[in-house]
């Protein structure tokens, strides 16, 4: 035992020595990034790395396009762009690990809604670019409005560039077959959950072998859907696991924090889902199902698919090819009572890595991608004549184009702009009508500049997320037994995990935010 003790001491000493080595190592790199003052000077050729999400195309087209892009970048910024791909398998681990490791990545694709940009900003993953932007990305600086810059500030500093000049809606809802709906006597477009239920029942009665809504168990979006369809609540940019617990009360009163979970609406929702589950509108073991349900929808094996507008517009044209004669429409959550909020401008964004060695040049490169028409088109569409051709102002595939040999994508979702976009001929025409409809009813996003500081309630947020992850999927697919009891149980567990404390903290910060907004 004495020997053991001595040994443990030895181990401790070793660990300490190593930690000192590691310590001095890290502080060294810190200072080196800050002493980079020759940003103006473009004389040194540098390589700018950009972290993008997606599976890297392996058909060799990417390399060919990047060669062209880099030729232009060399000429204009004396730099070269290198893409660092984070593939979909385990992307959460790799994306966050790369940020956490302090690797000197220059440009990073991020998003406040699906990539936890605020969380990463809080952890110090992004560089403060407030002072660099006007000088090194002047065009972007001009183009983005002050109001939108405000929405990219963490702690008063700009930490990302918003994709704010690109029209898109990622407004969720159900896609369904209108040709089938007509057979069941549903002639009007579906606008609420009740009618959707009737449609599902119609499939159950008339289409043997078709699952009304085949869904993977991960998709609990109906909880959002029901909340937006039957209340005026607005989701707050605070993630608490698979479903956000805290919402703003309504568009008229956005600064009062509430939770639909603690209102009757959630019990109604749980009851309806239980009812649907009992009627067999989805698979019995839906919670473990992982199939490719979009393909099944296209194959006519299921009656509905759930996703957002952009997906719908793509699916619509594919559907004409896959199931000729079929017609599909979308029941968007906002159809029920026009509860539609404008998209946050940071659904797509680009940040500069905290450990970037050439932030100035990185911004120059970004400015070029976003504002140089030639580079923009190359980077987003590929080579003219190989990947695309322009016919009557629309993007078409050239003669001899082969999807497998010539497909190209750079997965750049951090700064597309409408001014350079060329509409694709494949795109469904009706989408602009849909967008026009949305534009009529949309209300401004009230929380653009609200960044919740979760530090005082970090442990509670983790606990709440855990509870939602444990309770919501079962409720959302009617698998939690008696729905009323399940929701009460859910509330009880949320309370135990610190629901009230977090509510108070959010309300406190929201009150301050209200003063800030109304003071302006």
């Amino acid at each position: 035992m004495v020997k053991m003790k001595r040994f443990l001491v030895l181990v401790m000493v070793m660990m300490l020595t190593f930690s000192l080595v590691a310590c001095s190592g890290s502080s060294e790199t810190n200072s080196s990034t800050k002493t980079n003052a020759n940003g103006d000077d473009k004389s040194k050729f540098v390589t700018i790395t950009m972290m993008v999400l997606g599976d890297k195309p392996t058909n060799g087209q990417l390399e060919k396009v990047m060669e062209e892009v880099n030729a232009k970048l060399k000429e204009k910024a004396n730099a070269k762009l290198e893409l660092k791909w984070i593939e979909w398998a385990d992307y959460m681990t790799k994306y966050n690990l790369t940020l956490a490791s302090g690797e000197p990545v220059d440009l990073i694709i991020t998003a406040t809604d699906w990539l936890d940009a605020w969380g990463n900003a809080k952890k110090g993953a992004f560089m403060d670019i407030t002072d660099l932007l006007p000088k090194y990305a002047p065009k972007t600086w001009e183009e983005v409005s002050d109001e939108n810059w405000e929405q990219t500030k963490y702690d008063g500093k700009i930490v990302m560039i918003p994709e704010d000049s690109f029209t898109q809606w990622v407004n969720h809802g159900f896609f369904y077959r209108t040709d089938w709906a007509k057979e069941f006597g549903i002639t009007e477009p579906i606008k609420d959950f009740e009618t959707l239920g009737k449609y599902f029942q119609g499939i159950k009665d008339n289409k043997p072998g078709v699952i009304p809504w085949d869904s993977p168990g991960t998709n609990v979006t109906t909880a959002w859907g029901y909340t937006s369809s039957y209340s005026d609540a607005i989701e707050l940019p605070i993630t608490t696991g698979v479903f956000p617990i805290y919402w703003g009360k309504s568009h008229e009163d956005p600064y009062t924090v509430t939770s639909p979970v603690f209102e009757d609406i959630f019990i109604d929702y749980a009851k309806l889902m239980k009812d649907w589950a009992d009627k067999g509108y989805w698979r019995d073991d839906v919670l473990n199902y992982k199939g490719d349900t979009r393909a099944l929808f296209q194959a006519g094996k299921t009656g509905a698919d759930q996703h957002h507008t952009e997906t719908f517009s793509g699916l619509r044209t594919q559907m004409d090819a896959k199931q000729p004669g079929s017609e599909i429409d979308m029941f968007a959550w906002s159809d029920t009572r026009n509860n539609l909020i404008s998209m946050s401008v940071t659904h797509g964004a680009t940040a500069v890595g905290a450990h970037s060695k050439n932030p100035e040049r990185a911004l120059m490169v970004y400015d070029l991608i976003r504002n140089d028409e030639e580079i923009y088109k190359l980077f987003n569409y590929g080579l003219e004549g190989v990947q695309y051709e322009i016919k009557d102002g629309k993007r078409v595939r050239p003669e001899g184009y082969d999807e497998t040999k010539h497909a190209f994508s750079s997965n750049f979702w951090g700064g597309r702009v409408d001014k350079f976009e060329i509409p694709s001929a494949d795109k469904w025409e009706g989408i602009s009508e849909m967008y026009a409809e949305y534009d009529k009813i949309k209300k401004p996003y009230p929380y653009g500049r609200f960044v919740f500081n979760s530090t005082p309630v970090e442990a509670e947020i983790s606990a709440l997320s855990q509870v939602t992850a444990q309770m919501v999927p079962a409720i959302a697919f009617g698998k939690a037994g008696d729905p009323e009891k399940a929701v009460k149980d859910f509330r009880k567990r949320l309370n135990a995990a610190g629901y009230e404390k977090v509510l108070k903290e959010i309300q406190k910060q929201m009150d301050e935010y209200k003063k800030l907004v109304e003071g302006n």
Partner: protein
Amino acid sequence: MEQTSRRNIDTSTIMVRIIGYGFIGLFALCCLFPFILIVSSSFSSEKAIMESGFALWPKEFSTFAYEIVFKNPRLVIGSYFVTLAITIVGTAVGLFIIAMTGYALQRQDFLYRNKISFYIYFTTLFSGGLVPFYLLMTKYLHLQDNYLAVLLPGLLSPFLIIMMKAFTKSIPHEITESAKMDGAGDFTIFLKIILPMSTPALATIGLFIALGYWNEWYNSMLFLSPNMEYRPLQLFLYNVVTSADFIRNSAAASNVPAQDIPLETMKMATAVVATGPVILFYPFVQKYFISGITIGAVKG
């Protein structure tokens, strides 16, 4: 020989054999069953899988998935080569170090054996965790996009060293003693006497190291980015199983429209391609178990 041994067989031996054949046979069947499912569904049409799930025999026979996998064999063959190279080099180097350490640690006259054993064992209890390990590999050792990032961490494992130590314990200490009398050094004893005597142990440990390398995908996922053209087989398989986009991408050269690529059956076909050939490798290792027995007999 034959006759004497036959006379010795009593009822208890027969019973043990009956139980043995029955039990092992049954268990082997259980192990084979899921594999049959994989093979059967890899030869099934995508439509049959989508409509009625897996079956022990394909409902609609189709080799479409294999055709796509082999239309562009470059990636698969490259992956095979990388995995094979890492496995062979890693196993050879790792086995030698493990055998050497194991032998030294079991020597009763080696003063530091307990301390070093604990030093090694301790690492199974505590590890720095993901972030520090990642930092070490990328920031300090600069092994990003380097096959060494997969090769090096898999070389040694505390478990295998301690196993080796236990195995070599069964070699009588007198052998070392008498060799020492003859003037042989410790390293010579290990190289010339101990190594040739421990084939069953080496075969076992070697097999485990090789399996570790063959099944490795996590370090590959962390450290070998998609910028590398050829990445280990299991990472390839992992990507195929978890990402539909990846399948569509890798099937790019097959001239099949993206939406017609049979996702489910391709997963299974890739699994068969990645696993199948290894089965041929195992009997090769088994030989050494048997040769080990004969050495033991000579020794006795």
